[in-house]
């Protein structure tokens, strides 16, 4: 049975109509995330198809023996290079760490190694086309340095765990701790499009997600109860909605809305986004959004705005050259804003390994003031088993 399934996966590889890990892989013709991820809106563990795509279409084939064809490479994409022994269980291990250098060569150069992610993922799946899934992750993720107050925060924790049931290929319900349905899930958790609406790497919420997918539309409606392990007064309750429409069969235009709040603040954010497939791995991603933050104890309102524009080029298989251009104005009442400009390289030398270099130049625009640009670079390695 497994052999047949793997064979079908290989056949599917020949049909570039599906989705993959990073939002920019729309540049390979993949519009929806569901085909490669268990989470229908992306992020988290890859399914068998996603692993095979990562091993073949995305990663370089330069380091395989000449005799290996795509089929053989795809066959080795399972956990620990093996074909899964049973249909109902999948396991994955992920590590992502980077050397972060701020103010390089400056007087205040700061060099840090951050183990951003080290987790194990377990997926139980049952029924035809994995109709019913249970997904969980557990691992180590960093706390701020120095750590936040309180002694209840652990380095070891579960970032997501949820169950999902697809009634049809078009409609599914997911419940548990998940990323919020909103905007483009870029992996740069510190991008302004993620920090301003509070969608960073730890901002998952418990809740229920309704997901609807057709060739031309994708909708995620997400009810949030906040993170239930937090104290009630801190939990961000509310909901979010994201809608995407397919344009010319290869591009996506979308809109998102989110309203959440706890006992201290309310956040209302809305955004428009687009993902454009420019063939052979080239892609453009863009998102522009606005966030209204209301402080409840004094009814103070602050409107902020952000923009994200990412470009991707693939000179050859396995290598992506990108630009990450961001804008943020966290208070529209004043005229100050910042632009962050970051060229970078992402290289998948072989399946399961991603090496990445990001350079960020951040410039502030302030009436009456001129400040030096801030420079940061990071050298990142990502390994998945």
């Amino acid at each position, binding site marked *: 049975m497994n052999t047949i399934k793997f064979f079908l996966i290989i056949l599917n590889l020949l049909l570039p109509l599906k989705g993959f890990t990073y939002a920019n892989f729309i540049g390979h013709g993949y519009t929806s995330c569901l085909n490669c991820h268990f989470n229908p809106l992306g992020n988290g563990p890859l399914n068998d198809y996603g692993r095979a795509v990562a091993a073949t279409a995305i990663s370089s084939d330069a380091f395989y023996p000449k005799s290996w064809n795509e089929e053989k490479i795809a066959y080795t994409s399972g956990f620990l290079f093996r074909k899964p022994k049973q249909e109902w269980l999948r396991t994955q291990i992920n590590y992502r760490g980077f050397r972060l250098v701020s103010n390089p060569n400056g007087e205040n150069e700061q060099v840090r190694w951050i183990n951003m992610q080290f987790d194990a993922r377990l997926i139980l799946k049952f029924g035809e086309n994995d109709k019913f899934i249970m997904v969980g992750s557990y691992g180590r993720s960093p706390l701020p340095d120095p750590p936040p107050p309180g002694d209840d925060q652990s380095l070891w924790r579960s970032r997501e765990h949820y169950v999902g049931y697809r009634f049809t290929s078009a409609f599914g319900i997911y419940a548990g701790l998940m990323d919020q349905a909103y905007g483009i899930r870029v992996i740069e958790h510190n991008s302004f499009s993620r920090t301003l609406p509070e969608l960073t790497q730890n901002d998952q919420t418990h809740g229920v997600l309704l997901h609807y997918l057709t060739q031309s539309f994708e909708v995620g409606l997400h009810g949030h109860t906040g993170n239930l392990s937090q104290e009630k007064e801190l939990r961000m309750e509310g909901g979010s909605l994201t809608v995407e429409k397919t344009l010319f069969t290869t591009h996506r235009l979308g809109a998102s809305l989110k309203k959440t709040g706890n006992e201290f603040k309310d956040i209302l954010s809305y955004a428009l986004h687009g993902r454009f497939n420019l063939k052979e791995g080239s892609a453009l991603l863009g998102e522009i959004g606005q966030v209204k933050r209301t402080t409840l104890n004094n009814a103070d309102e602050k409107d902020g705005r952000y923009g994200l524009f990412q470009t991707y*080029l693939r000179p050859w298989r396995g290598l992506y050259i990108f630009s990450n251009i961001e804008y943020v104005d966290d208070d529209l009442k004043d005229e100050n804003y910042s632009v962050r400009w970051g060229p970078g390289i992402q290289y998948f030398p072989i399946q399961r390994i991603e090496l990445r270099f990001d350079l960020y130049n951040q410039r502030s625009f302030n009436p009456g003031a001129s400040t030096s640009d801030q420079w940061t670079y990071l050298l990142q390695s990502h390994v998945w088993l």
Partner: protein
Amino acid sequence: MMKWVSVFLILQMSSSVFATSIKKYFKAKEWQKIVDIYQSNKKASFTEKEFGMISEALRNREQFREDISLNIRFIRIYFNSEHSKLMKEIRSGASTDSEQFSDALKHSYWSIINDLAQIIKGIKKKSPEVEKDFKQFQMFSKIMEALEFNEGKTDKLVSNVQSHMIYLEEKIYRFSGSLVFNYISWQSEVNLQGTETAKLLVTNRGYCLGGDAGVENYRYHFFVDGCLLIGSGEINNKDAQPEYQQSNVPSYGLKAGPGASVIVSSSKSRIGLKIPFVYTIQNFEEPSPTSGNNYTVKQKSPLTMQVSLYSRFNLNAWFIQTEIGQYIGNDEIFWGLGFGKSY
């Protein structure tokens, strides 16, 4: 009369001599020897089998044009009427019953179309000759289609040759030009010179309107681009003395230079380098006598040079482009994000 009879007898004799040698060399796969025999006796009359063996030898020695001539001769000698009938059917658009035609004829067509494919694929530059070969190739692909012979292989061959012709076409450099509108930002350094020198930074933002002209093929783009720059900058002295601050200081200029890029996708997304020269004029007020006595504004040369990384993403004729550059000789950075239209 006797003379002609003698020639005929000699030819018959030599043919049988060739037959033995060709067969022997064919078994031993000594292709060159077969080719040598053929070259010395082109006008000899060969049997169907001999034609087949010589054809294979020619192909093995990569003498594709010679093989085409041989096969055409073979068709004329043995299958002239069948060939004429087939051509008539194809021209009239009538359906063809492939069973009516001999297998040897089909194999001969297959050899010719393969030879043409090899010839075309071996050519690196588009020429009238290759276009003539391609026309012939197209004619033989129609023949193969009508005969429904080696269908899968023929389709693959046709697809490969068509791709190669597209490649030859795309290799040709053609003029390309575009109009571009950029949002830009750059920093520059200004000195306040007095008893001591205070280094001040100007942060500018503005627009650059221009375009580029150059040549490009499917893989490379070489161009010269330029734009008129208009913007304004903020400047202040972080030090207490001399007190100095100005807002919205207008800046005008020109940015132009050569560039080259590599096109990495069929949608013509590209990445490259530019070396622009930038000439800017920006006039700063002198410090007021009360705050900056004895200090004067000293600007660096208005002409600077950059090295910039540039990328462009086409959505049909429209495109979006990004650029980030470093001024040569100092630490300041220039960047631009724009859109444009290709012509």
